[in-house]
């Protein structure tokens, strides 16, 4: 297929030489111990993510997607195995990785713009340059169509606006890897579609390495270069799909829908015993 209308080559394309793995997960497992009871959340996971790649983790509820993201973010340590970012071992949260949570987690004591500025304050290049921080925050808010709300308190924003503000805050410090846990839940279809296109705009512009989690096969197909499909609990990688479509992709594009169908079918396959959303 030669569908190259965009100037930026998708990393999934075989034509370009594969970039070296940026993030490497080697035999990573996680078992939670709760009051003497062991819950095995993740079976050995092996995964390599390249620079500029958008990888979507997709699987039934409770299969350990959030756990894996927490491990990469450094909030938790793997029970066994190793996670390395550019060769260095991940043991705790750091400047090179940034997690965006399912809840927006914006700080209510700060105005919208100050939330975006916040993360910059700890970065070497911005440390003692408040004006530069503001300027960068303004640019990002503009990108998210939030410039009018820069000085608003958080509680005056709508749900979709909060998510966009959270995205601006996550992008501001320019982390090497952005981790997104179910970024756009409970938003109406229109807002979601807009967020997807905005996110892709940024992707094309900044070529950021992103790992995100979703329940929604369409979202996976729309955003991911690669979709990693997980088995039910304890989670392991069942298979993966390369989404070979040019960006930006429209969530309603039939080709995206085609991939979404494939992804959904993979999840169903042999998953009779773990229904997504079940309570264990």
């Amino acid at each position: 297929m030669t569908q190259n209308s965009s100037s930026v080559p998708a990393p999934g394309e075989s034509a370009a030489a594969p970039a070296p793995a940026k993030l490497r997960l080697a035999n990573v497992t996680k078992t939670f111990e709760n009051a003497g009871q062991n819950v095995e959340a993740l079976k050995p996971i092996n995964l390599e993510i390249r620079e500029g790649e958008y990888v979507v983790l997709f699987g039934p509820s409770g299969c350990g997607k959030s756990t894996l993201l927490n491990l990469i973010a450094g909030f938790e340590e793997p029970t066994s195995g190793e996670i390395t970012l550019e060769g260095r071992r991940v043991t705790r949260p750091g400047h090179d990785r940034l997690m965006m949570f399912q809840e927006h987690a914006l700080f209510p004591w700060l105005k919208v713009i100050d939330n975006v500025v916040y993360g910059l304050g700890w970065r070497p290049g911005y440390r003692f340059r408040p004006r530069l921080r503001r300027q960068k925050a303004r640019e990002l808010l503009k990108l998210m169509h939030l410039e009018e709300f820069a000085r608003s308190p958080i509680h005056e924003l709508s749900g979709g606006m909060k998510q966009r503000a959270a995205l601006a805050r996550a992008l501001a410090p320019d982390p090497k890897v952005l981790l997104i846990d179910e970024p756009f839940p409970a938003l109406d279809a229109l807002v979601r579609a807009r967020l997807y296109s905005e996110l892709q705009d940024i992707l094309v512009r900044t070529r950021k390495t992103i790992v995100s989690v979703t329940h929604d096969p369409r979202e996976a197909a729309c955003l991911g270069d690669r979709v990693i499909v997980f088995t039910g609990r304890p989670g392991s990688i069942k298979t993966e799909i390369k989404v070979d479509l040019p960006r930006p992709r429209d969530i309603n594009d039939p080709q995206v829908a085609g991939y979404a169908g494939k992804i959904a079918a993979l999840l169903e396959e042999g998953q009779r015993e773990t229904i997504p959303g079940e309570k264990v």
Partner: protein
Amino acid sequence: MKPSPEKKFRLYVFGFYLLLFVIWQALFSLRIIPDYLFPSPLQVGWRLWELGNDGMLWPSIKATLARMAIGFSIAAGIGLVIGMPMGMSRVVNSCLKSLFLGLQTLPSAAWVPISLLIFGLSDSGIYFVVIMSSVAAVAIATSDGILHIPPIYLRAARTLGTPGYAMPFRVILPAALPRIVTGVKLGWTLGWHGAVSAELIKSSIGLGYLLYMGRELNDAAQVLGIMVLTILFGLLLDRFLFGQIEHRIRRRWGLLTPA
């Protein structure tokens, strides 16, 4: 035009107080209790007006409020400084919490004798009583507030790269603010009790002193009048100053369900 429910409630409240005054006046008119023990609302109002004209009232109110402002600021500061390590360390918390809960059960007036022993009749004794009455409430609220911070804020702060030294003031304290403000409000009320109690005995100015003078002079109208004023100022600051701040913070922190 239909009045809004809010306005209707206000009307009821106003009616309730009117009724209270009518009953008070009626009890007085029936002369069940001798009038030198039980003055009428008009006599009380008249006495307060007289006190005001004599230049006794306003300086006393100012004195009590000033003592509260200074004493309580110190108390709030100490409470925060003690409450923060309590909230951040389980060990410190388990040691200090029971102590402060115990201290909180002590009536404010119970601090007066010890303050007399230590400070004599000096003004610093009043500050001592105010501080001791309110510090525990602020400290406990601060530590509880910190212990109840939604973990998501702490995780967000960490992933955004907040260094450890910046956590207490950039994240932990603001995230705990709603509960801290509630504790500050309670602390203010307890401190107010303490201030008036201490003034009863150790002062030559202030609302407590006027209460004491009223008793010395067998002036029931003055005693009741000052009591009413003490309630009014306590309520005013509690409801309209601290209450407003608390409401705003809770709304901003998304802790109020929009009506």
